């Protein structure tokens, strides 16, 4: 197992480097720079000398290749530079925001898994029944719902009208604060998981080895538990890994709506202010997290289905 994990980790390095290079290229051609955006608040007149001084101070005047070499060098030592706005190391800001983001992502995925997977399995056991119809209508609707709209409606219903949950904020670890954002964020992966689990179970049920197991006289519970569940799980796990990426992406909107102090809201604020080092740091962290989750999922798949690690 260990060589497999190692191999998957090695495969992630070029992707991470390519993403880093892409982000650098993207932001080094940026037309408006931080200094002029800082000053253009409509009140103060932009002084060319000030901009030149700020560009000098932040090293924005150096040739591109020098900046890139320095950027990669810093990256390897986890030095992501200082925020243009707060002048503090980007790594600090990221470290502060990472935990709330992880909490939200995992809470949303938890919600999606505990409801979505059983729903898909139930639907697949009785194809064409009302529960199948209902869960698939629910799944298609869930995939089409804009998360921030759902969030707004949840906020209105459960926070402002019923008063069951706080409407926004982090609440220093108070679990009631995470419920609404996690539901808003989790509905779309829930829908996809329900659909994928249903399709996976139906596909496995038609396989030859299921017929063989039944022919051998295995009980229905044994067939389900050892043959269907285990094989369907690989497909479900793979979807789960891919969904994590979109959850992290979508979290940007949900975090902003619920004023959740995660990476997403940091990213949006930094994009608005063109605080490039922070934007780069956020994107790199998100990509890194996504890669790690996918490697973890691949390893889990290999644990569930030993055929995978040899291919």
């Amino acid at each position, binding site marked *: 197992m260990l060589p497999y994990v190692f191999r998957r980790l090695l495969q992630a390095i*070029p*992707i*991470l480097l*390519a*993403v880093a290079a*892409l*982000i650098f290229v*993207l*932001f080094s*051609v*940026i*037309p*408006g720079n931080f200094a002029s955006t800082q000053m253009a608040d409509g009140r103060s007149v932009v002084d060319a000398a000030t901009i030149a001084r700020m560009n000098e101070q932040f090293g924005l005047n150096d040739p591109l290749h020098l900046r890139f070499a320095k950027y990669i060098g810093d990256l390897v030592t986890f030095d992501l530079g200082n925020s243009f706005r707060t002048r503090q190391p980007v790594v600090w800001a990221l470290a502060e925001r990472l935990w709330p983001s992880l909490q939200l992502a995992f809470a949303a995925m938890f919600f999606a898994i505990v409801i979505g997977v059983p729903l898909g399995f139930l639907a*697949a056991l009785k194809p064409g029944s009302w529960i199948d119809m209902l869960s698939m209508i629910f799944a*298609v*609707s869930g*995939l*089409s*719902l*804009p*998360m*921030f*709209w759902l969030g*707004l*409606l949840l*906020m*209105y219903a459960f926070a*402002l009208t019923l008063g069951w949950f706080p409407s926004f904020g982090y609440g220093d670890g108070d679990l009631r604060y995470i419920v609404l954002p996690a539901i808003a964020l989790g509905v779309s992966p829930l829908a996809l998981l329900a659909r994928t689990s*249903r*399709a996976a179970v*139906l*596909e496995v049920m*038609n396989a030859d080895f299921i017929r063989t197991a039944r022919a051998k006289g295995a009980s229905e519970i044994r067939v389900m538990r050892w043959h269907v569940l285990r094989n369907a799980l690989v497909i479900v796990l793979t979807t789960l890994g891919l969904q994590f*990426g*979109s959850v*992290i*992406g*979508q979290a*940007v*909107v949900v975090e*902003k*709506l619920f004023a959740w102090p995660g990476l997403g809201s940091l*990213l*949006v604020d930094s*994009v*608005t202010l*063109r605080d*490039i080092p922070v*934007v780069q740091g956020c*994107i790199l962290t*998100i*990509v890194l997290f*996504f*890669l790690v989750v996918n490697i973890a999922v691949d390893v889990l798949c290999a644990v569930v289905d030993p055929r995978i690690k040899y291919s």
Partner: protein
Amino acid sequence: MKFRANLWIGGACFALVVAGGVFAPWFAHTDPVMDANLMNAEVPPGSEFWFGTDAQGRDIYSRVLYGARISLTVGIVSQLINTIIGVSLGLSAGYFGGWWDDFVNGLTNMMLAIPSLIFALAIMAILSPGLTSLLIALGLTNWSFTCRLTRAATLSVKAMGYVEAARSLGYGTFRIMATQILPNIAGPIIVIGTLGMGGAVLAEASLSFLGLGIRPPFPSWGSMLSDARDQISTAPWISIFPGLAIFLTVLGLNLLGDGLRDILDPHSRTRQA
């Protein structure tokens, strides 16, 4: 032929939204941007204002109709750009193989590692907010699935007898790709394009909601929802209708995509399911 509920319901939803957008000037009651009237601020839905009015007293019904134009333009054009990029890269990679295939694969893997909304956000950080920037940001960031699919389909079709026959007849490379391979792999590409369009409509709404897409006062459903957030406790109807419009559009496209998949891509897994 079997009655396909998803195709018909999806088609109907989508047609409704298209009609709303195209005929907005005839259906709308007021100008969506100019007719602000603070005397009418936050009027609940009723006979005069069907969907109510917003904080500036603008008719939400008219704004939702005009909003369809932005959503559909962004959805269709950006997905078209994605499809063109994805198909050209995937088709050429599958057909030529070799270093080009490796390069395209690397590029696709990199794109798949960045959540597309995050990538679009990064591009919007460079460009100034507006329609063109949105089209660029969303058109460049969501082609990786189309590319993968096209490449895989090309690889399987390339080995077919009719492609070999065309080659023996002296067809040029481009002609083989355009007349022999592309028509035979078009089904799954159309399906993924339709589903992607729904994704693009959602992404536009998200970016506009964050204030990085279409800027107010122009009526994009996303920016309308962003404005509505401040009035959620006093005027919840401002939040309901733009969101419903997004939901209807994306639902329509998703159902349409599913229905088309059953017809155009009978080998896919959902068919068995």
